[in-house]
């Protein structure tokens, strides 16, 4: 390998580390992303033009065509996608990365001879297996998030089956390496097993835990890239992949913490089982009080302090622009308005911040959980839009609840609570919310966008 290419790879590797570091701080995040992108561009250009091989022109043309086609597709998807669809998109892109790693392994398998080093053989096989798992797992996650795969499929004893499956894949790979059975049939069997495991692994996991799964799969793609890096003795792939792999694990754990879950309970789904048990024990919690847009509007109009709690329902209904209109209207009437942002509000951690930023909500109005919780005591009206589990007082006072111990927004301390929901259906955790039966709570039923639009027009008439 020539020295210029090595230096280019070195520079790219450094930009990845620096870029990732900068992405972790709000002020430098944008620059960090750019830095890493430039490094990636350098690495790609270097790989094409500086690799020492005699390559016929037609190959360059093909590579150029592939880059152009894929680049345009990626760019178009990125600029067109709605911000509410972000979790699906990350998942889809991640699946593509995994597929890419698996395909490389497939091609490299053909170059293996009996003289090939065992480690190289093992590397190729793990690339195929991990790439296939990431690909099919990400596609299932994508399907679950965009609603085409609705139900949580629970195969009986899926934990045992899944664990046996993964052990089987590993044993099978070791068997292939030792026997040197490099026939195409063995390869495709491994590929299929990887694809099947990806499906089995993600299928039983609930929608609310999907961000954690995506983050985990993302980390796996990084590992697949690193493995491919070992194969080619290529440092930028090795370090870049490992970086994503380990950072992905840390990010996954951070997300679990924000959701009050352990990684084990996400993967092994003990949450779903606990919730099902809780459901059977549901008792009547009293009666609810319904309200309408005009009463809610009056209440908010005469309030001094209003806190808005946006949740998943707001994201689904695409109501982030209407809520900003409502907030501006209230502010113009002299009401103090703030948003209370739970760390996992929206469809993935930090998602709500992106959505509200998209609709131009002033950043200073978004208050994090620990800062806003003491303020609920002085709040006249809390408007909860499409949030459920993150305002469920059971997290504080019901040790038997599956969400017990989860950090929540203490909205029950406010003087009045208006809850906008489509119906009385339970949230992701599948449990009842006694907040709705609180005497201070009024329920404003309806689609978030429709209900908020009505609220806005009522307020305008006042």
């Amino acid at each position, binding site marked *: 390998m020539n020295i210029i290419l090595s230096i280019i790879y070195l520079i790219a590797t450094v930009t990845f580390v620096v870029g990732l570091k900068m992405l972790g701080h709000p002020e430098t995040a944008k620059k960090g992303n750019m830095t890493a992108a430039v490094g990636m561009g350098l690495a*790609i250009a270097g790989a094409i033009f500086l690799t020492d091989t005699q390559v016929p022109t037609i190959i360059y043309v093909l590579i150029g065509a592939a880059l152009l086609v894929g680049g345009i597709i990626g760019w178009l998807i990125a600029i067109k996608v709605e911000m509410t669809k972000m979790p699906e998109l990350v998942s889809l*892109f991640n699946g593509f990365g995994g597929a890419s790693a698996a395909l490389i392994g497939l091609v490299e398998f053909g170059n293996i001879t009996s003289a090939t080093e065992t480690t190289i053989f093992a590397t190729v096989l793990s690339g195929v297996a991990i790439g296939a798992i990431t690909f099919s797992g990400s596609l299932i996650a994508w399907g679950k998030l965009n609603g085409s795969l609705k139900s949580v499929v629970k195969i009986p004893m899926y934990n045992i089956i899944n664990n046996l499956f993964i052990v089987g894949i590993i044993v099978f790979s070791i068997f292939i390496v030792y026997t040197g059975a490099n026939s195409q049939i063995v390869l495709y069997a491994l590929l299929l097993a990887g694809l099947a495991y990806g499906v089995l692994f993600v299928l039983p996991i609930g929608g609310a835990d999907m961000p954690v799964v995506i983050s985990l799969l993302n980390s796996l793609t990084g590992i697949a890239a690193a493995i491919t890096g070992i194969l080619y003795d290529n440092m930028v792939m090795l370090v870049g992949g490992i970086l994503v792999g380990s950072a992905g694990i840390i990010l996954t754990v951070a997300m679990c913490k924000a959701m009050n879950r352990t990684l084990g309970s996400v993967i092994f789904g003990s949450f779903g089982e606990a919730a099902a048990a809780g459901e059977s024990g549901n008792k009547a919690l009293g009666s609810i009080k319904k309200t309408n847009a005009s009463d809610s509007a009056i209440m908010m109009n005469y309030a001094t302090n209003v806190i808005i709690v946006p949740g998943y329902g707001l994201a689904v209904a695409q109501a982030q622009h209407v809520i900003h209109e409502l907030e501006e209207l209230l502010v113009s009437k002299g009401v103090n308005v703030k948003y209370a942002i739970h760390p996992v509000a929206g469809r993935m951690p930090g998602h709500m911040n992106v959505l509200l930023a998209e609709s131009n909500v002033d950043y200073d109005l978004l208050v994090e959980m620990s800062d806003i919780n003491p303020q609920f005591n002085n709040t006249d009206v809390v408007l909860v839009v499409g949030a459920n589990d993150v305002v469920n007082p059971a997290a504080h006072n019901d040790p038997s609840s599956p969400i017990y111990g989860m950090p929540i927004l203490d909205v029950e301390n406010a003087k009045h609570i208006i809850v906008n929901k489509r119906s009385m259906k339970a949230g992701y955790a599948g449990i009842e919310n006694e907040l709705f039966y609180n005497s201070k709570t009024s329920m404003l039923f309806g689609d978030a966008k429709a209900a908020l639009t009505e609220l806005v027009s009522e307020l305008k008439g006042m």
Partner: protein
Amino acid sequence: MNELIEFISNNLQITYILILATFVGIEVIKSIPAVLHTPLMSGANALSGVVIVGAILVMLKSSPEDYVALALGFVAVVLGIINVVGGFAVTDRMLQMFKKKK
């Protein structure tokens, strides 16, 4: 076990890099505010697209007559670059929204 020892002795440098890079990754990401989880995940996702370098190497090594290898390599490059370009572009779009206001 012998295989592992063989791997380490043959690839001592790579083993060092593997372990040290793991720590770098962990240290770099430690304690990020929840606000940035979404963009960070999407940015890291774009970085994992570095696998495209391997896809390009596959194509460079293939002979023009090996249609299967070329076709698989072609698809791998397309998928890889979608991951890279799409990932960085969408992260930038998200962060742009944060930027607009102070």
